[in-house]
């Protein structure tokens, strides 16, 4: 295991830490972007440059930017994220319990091979063939899903809010 | 017979109420009642044709009509009628027809009411005529479920409570039934749902002993089995007239029919092992229902608890597992069905005028409304098991069989006749006889058109009382379960 890999891991984890802990949402998004970049690099070290590139393009370039736009478009969307200590403690407890349990399982699990496959097998061309061969149906479905998601997002985001008089009693009714 | 055999009479009989449901939903408002009357008369005619065309000398299943339904699970629409099914279909058709006529004055959500009623009747026909276990259960649920809206929307006293109670009890029964039926399918080889085929294959004795109580109790709840009868008097009381008629007259018979056809039919050994328990519960129901009916002040509660008592006689007859007892039980199902239908139709007629069912608030009804009063008296006489009425021969057969199978239980059950006489005569004495209550002076008697359905029911009671052979011929092929 190379030092590069290790460093990348540390960067990713630090970015993630920033993403979930800082009080400014914009900072958090930048933390996320950092972690994602490190992950993209890790993907490349795992012999998958194509995936790493997609990660950068879609996540860092798409999703993160969309988040920043969303924050910018909606005023006072929590530039000041303050959670109660109890809430953070509870979340941390659950997360660390899960981490402890799963780490224990990983470490005490059966031995796994530590020899990576030959890098040649990770030719992007192969991926392309597989994607348009065996996985063609899933690929097409995914494209439809994406299309629908975009259309849905447009519809949801552009619908005018109903008159508050209607909305309020509906909310009241829902509360028993 | 040969000409009749060409007509697929069972699918027609099943399709009539279903068609009625669908047509009721679409025809104009003013045509709903004529449509229902016509189609229920058609169903009655088909049921009569079925009874006349049935060859009682050969017995067995006749008029078979088999089509695949869900082939993947070998589920079939397997319609066939044996004598019991013929008799029960006749009962259902009679109560359907007369019940429809008694609701002529309904004007609240007529469309939905008649749609639900004919759906219920469709389910009941399906149960009686299905030889396929899955279809049997399917139709059983179709028959049971419309009760909830029918009571909750068109009912009276504590209708929401009664409807919910009824539904919960019956769902509890179904919850016992459904897994048991699947168990029968799986343990029976997993390749057939046919009831006769499953019965022929037989089951391991330990399986029978384990499964039988589930089936018995599951069906028994619908049959008003003590002590799980609580839904039935409350439901009777709350339901509108024709629903009460169908409910007590036909629906409770589904439970007894299920016990006979499925529980005893497929698991005879289990039935034999559990017979003493079943007979004891039935006897307890006879006595308990009669005593509790004695304390009631509401007309419909009296009849409701009398149903518990009379269904106890049915269950006692079934529990004897003898030929005579089973015949008596099936005949009693028919007699009790017609009788309670008559009871509820007359009580409903009076209730519609006064909105009061307290027997202490009446008196001298026989003077005030002689026709309705006479019909009620006839029903009460049938309830007491007086000779000349259909229930006499039925109860006699059950009692003879019970005395032979369990002398002590038989004697207790026969002693119930005294209590039955006491509570029915109490109602007659308070409400029908005695000095007329001046507050009820304005009561109208039945007009001829209104009397027609009730007179049909009373006439059937007398007809089958004087010529019980009509019914007994149909069910003469019932054999003893345990020789």
């Amino acid at each position, binding site marked *: 295991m190379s030092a590069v890999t*290790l460093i990348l891991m540390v960067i990713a984890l630090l970015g993630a830490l920033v993403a979930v802990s800082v009080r400014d949402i914009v900072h958090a998004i930048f933390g996320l972007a950092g972690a994602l970049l490190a992950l993209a690099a890790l993907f490349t070290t*795992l*012999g998958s440059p194509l*995936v790493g590139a*997609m990660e950068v393009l879609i996540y860092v370039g798409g999703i993160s930017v969309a988040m920043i736009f969303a924050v910018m478009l*909606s005023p006072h969307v*929590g530039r000041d994220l303050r959670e109660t200590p109890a809430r953070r403690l509870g979340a941390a407890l659950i997360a660390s319990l899960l*981490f402890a349990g799963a*780490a224990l399982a990983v470490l005490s699990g059966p031995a796994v091979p530590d020899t990576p496959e030959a890098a040649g097998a990770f030719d992007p061309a192969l991926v392309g063939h597989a994607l348009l061969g065996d996985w063609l149906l899933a690929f097409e479905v995914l494209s439809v899903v994406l299309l629908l998601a975009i259309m849905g997002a447009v519809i949801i985001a552009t619908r005018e809010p109903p008159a508050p008089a209607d909305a309020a009693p509906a909310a009241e009714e829902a509360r028993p | 017979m040969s000409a009749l055999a060409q007509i697929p009479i069972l699918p027609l009989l099943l399709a009539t109420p279903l068609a009625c449901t669908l047509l009721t939903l679409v025809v104009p408002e003013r045509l709903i009642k004529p449509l229902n009357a016509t189609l229920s008369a058609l169903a009655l005619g088909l049921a009569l044709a079925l009874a006349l065309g049935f060859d009682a000398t050969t017995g067995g299943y006749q008029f078979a009509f088999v089509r695949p339904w869900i082939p993947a699970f070998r589920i079939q629409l397997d319609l066939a009628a044996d004598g019991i099914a013929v008799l029960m279909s006749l009962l259902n058709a009679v109560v359907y027809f007369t019940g429809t006529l008694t609701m002529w004055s309904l004007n609240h959500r007529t469309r939905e009411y008649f749609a639900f009623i004919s759906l219920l009747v469709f389910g009941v026909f399906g149960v009686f005529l299905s030889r396929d276990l899955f279809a049997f259960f399917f139709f059983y649920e179709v028959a049971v479920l419309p009760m909830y809206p029918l009571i909750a929307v068109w009912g009276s006293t504590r209708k929401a409570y009664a409807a919910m109670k009824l539904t919960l009890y019956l769902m509890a029964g179904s919850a016992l039934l459904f897994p048991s039926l699947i168990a029968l399918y799986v343990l029976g080889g997993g390749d057939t749902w046919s009831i006769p085929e499953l019965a022929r294959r037989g089951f391991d004795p330990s399986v029978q002993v384990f499964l039988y109580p589930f089936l018995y109790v599951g069906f028994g709840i619908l049959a008003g089995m003590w002590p799980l009868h609580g839904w039935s008097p409350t439901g009777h009381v709350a339901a509108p007239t024709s629903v009460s008629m169908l409910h007590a007259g036909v629906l409770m018979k589904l439970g007894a029919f299920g016990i006979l056809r499925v529980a005893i039919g497929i698991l005879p050994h289990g039935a034999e092992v559990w017979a003493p328990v079943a007979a004891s519960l039935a006897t307890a129901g006879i006595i308990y229902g009669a005593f509790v009916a004695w304390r009631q002040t509401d007309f419909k509660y009296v009849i409701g608890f009398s149903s518990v008592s009379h269904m106890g006689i049915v269950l006692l007859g079934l529990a004897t597992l003898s030929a005579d007892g089973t015949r008596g039980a099936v005949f009693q199902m028919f007699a009790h069905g017609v009788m309670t239908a008559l009871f509820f139709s007359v009580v409903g007629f009076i209730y519609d005028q006064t909105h009061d069912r307290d027997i202490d608030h009446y008196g001298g009804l026989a003077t005030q409304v002689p026709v309705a009063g006479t019909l009620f008296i006839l029903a009460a006489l049938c309830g007491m098991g007086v000779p000349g009425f259909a229930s006499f021969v039925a109860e006699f057969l059950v009692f003879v069989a019970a005395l032979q199978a369990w002398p002590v239980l038989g004697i207790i059950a026969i002693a119930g006749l005294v209590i039955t006489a006491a509570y029915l005569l109490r109602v007659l004495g308070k409400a029908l006889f005695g000095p007329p209550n001046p507050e009820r002076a304005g009561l109208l008697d039945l007009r001829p058109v209104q009397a027609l359905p009730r007179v049909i029911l009373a006439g059937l009671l007398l007809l089958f009382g004087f010529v019980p052979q009509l019914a007994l011929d149909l069910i003469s092929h019932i054999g003893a379960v345990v020789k």
Partner: protein
Amino acid sequence: MTPLTAFNLCALALFCMGLYGVLARKNLIAMLIGVELMLNAASLNALAWGRYGLVDPAHAAVSGQILVLFIIGLAAAEAAIALAIILAVHRHRHSVDVDDLDTLEG
């Protein structure tokens, strides 16, 4: 510690951080950030397993990558929808505090 185990642990840590974010944050966008972290943790695992031949031995070379590609595609769709919903909610309620959004309560 083998490299694979290291990748697994790293992914696990990312996942748990994401979980922490989802649980601790009240802001919807912040929660979305946590979700993205969890998804990426899963992707990292999938790639690592693919690299070390634990995914679908017949097509070990590509299966892990394809899986991750699909995850990324779906994540894009998910993020688009989620952001749209967040904007819509914000317009309705003038809040993206998840504690206020309990109309699903039974």
